[in-house]
């Protein structure tokens, strides 16, 4: 799957989980940049992303996600 398509599908998921309709997704975006991004919303995000792309992450994947760029790369590797 193309990176652009992944980002396009991720955007509404992020906006819904963090309740922010103007959130713009970049590779560098991480928990430090988003106010509501705590351990609770992180796990909800993971679950929503899995549903959106019909994939399953491994715990190992989770530890490697330092920012959105990492997440996109991991999603891409699942296809």
């Amino acid at each position, binding site marked *: 799957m193309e990176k652009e398509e992944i980002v396009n599908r991720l955007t509404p998921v992020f906006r819904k989980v963090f309740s922010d309709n103007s959130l713009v997704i970049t590779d560098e975006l991480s928990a430090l940049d988003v106010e509501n991004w705590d*351990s609770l919303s992180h*796990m909800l995000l993971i679950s929503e992303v899995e549903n959106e792309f019909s994939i399953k992450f491994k715990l190992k994947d989770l530890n490697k996600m330092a920012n959105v760029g990492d997440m996109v790369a991991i999603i891409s590797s699942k296809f």
Partner: protein
Amino acid sequence: MLIASYYFYINIKPVYALLLAGVTITTYLFTNLIAKATSDRGKRLLLIAAIVLILLPLFFFKYFNFVNEGIFGLLNYAGLHLSLPHISLLLPVGISFYTFMALGYIIDVYNEEIEAEKNFGIVALFLSFFPVVMSGPIERASNMFHQFKGKLRFSYEMVVSGLQLMLWGYFMKLALADRISIYIDAVFKNTDQHVGSSLLLATLMQPIRVYGDLGGYSLIAIGCAKVMGVNVIPNFNRPFFATTMSEFWRRWHISLIKWLTDYVYTPLSFGFRKYGVWGIVIALNLTFIISGAWHGAALNFLVWGGIQGVALSFEMLTRKRKDAFEDRFRLKKRWWYIMLGCVFTYLLFAFSLSFGGDAATVAEVLQIFKRIVTDSFHLPYKDGDTMLYGFIAFSILFIKDFMEEYYPGRILLFNHKNNTVRWLAYYCVIFLIFYLGVFSGEQFVYFQF
């Protein structure tokens, strides 16, 4: 350093050094086997085998008598007469701490976050490093290996800063924790003889005692490692200025909480993620119940863990609403609102800590709470010297933490550019330790873990 560490450990109890060596060999073998395994299934099986093997001694020493007396007692009640001999076991010093460090390292290797170390000496030093082996901080391989591999150079700044930390650590332990322990023990060992107000005072002093004890020990350990040129992770960060329980647990026993977060909470919440918010609430509560069970094999420790879990879940579920409320009335920077948060958090922790001790069962703690509320008012039991010395020591620590929290860099005593001020501050603290301190050979609370 490895020889020094083992020498130190053998001096405490030689036989238990064999156990430490056994855990080290198991860790070394299994991390290298996991790294070499080619299939996911093989890696997973090795991981499970390693976790079971590493946990066995801890379970044996910590829960043997509990299982023996508790479970077999129940079976006996049900008409099944089974029993194993009661074994009088002294928990090997530091077993929890090196077990946790070994497990963390093995899981990190499995998750490919760190490479399996080929040099056995580095792994052995990591698990036996004498400043931290007895009571933490619970270190990570990723922070220690590269320091042990590099050349340790003498650094004047690190020696000075290490000694300063040790000095504060001794102050917190000898002048504060051991001093107020006299009062707390006098009250809690004879609750029948004391009035409600004494029980309340002793309950409120408990968090200060543990902060002085484990916080002091941690500073001594961190300082001692620093003198040798090794940086160890911090364990406390001015916990009494936390305004919520979630913030409190980011400031209290940090190395344990980070360990639990990475190796218990995260896998659990990941496993329960399909249940949404409730999956995370379950994971949070289970994590603290496990933490409670580690602190002691008794119902009161589970209650302690349960209270933390429920409080944190409540804060997590109401956070958005609370944030909106605080923004609406611009409360976040109001000093009285911050103070209210600190006091409430402190009280909640202090009362929950009553369940976190060896001395009292759940029923006894509830009885103490009842008496705090229902006893007619009398002035608390007075132990003049203890209270005065304890109060002076606490005030000094409180002012230091307060300044560092809200006015960092404003008052520098240990780091003042003037030599005389620095030395005067050192002598002052040394004098206070001797003047206020207790030197009757009190143990550190967490040595029994």
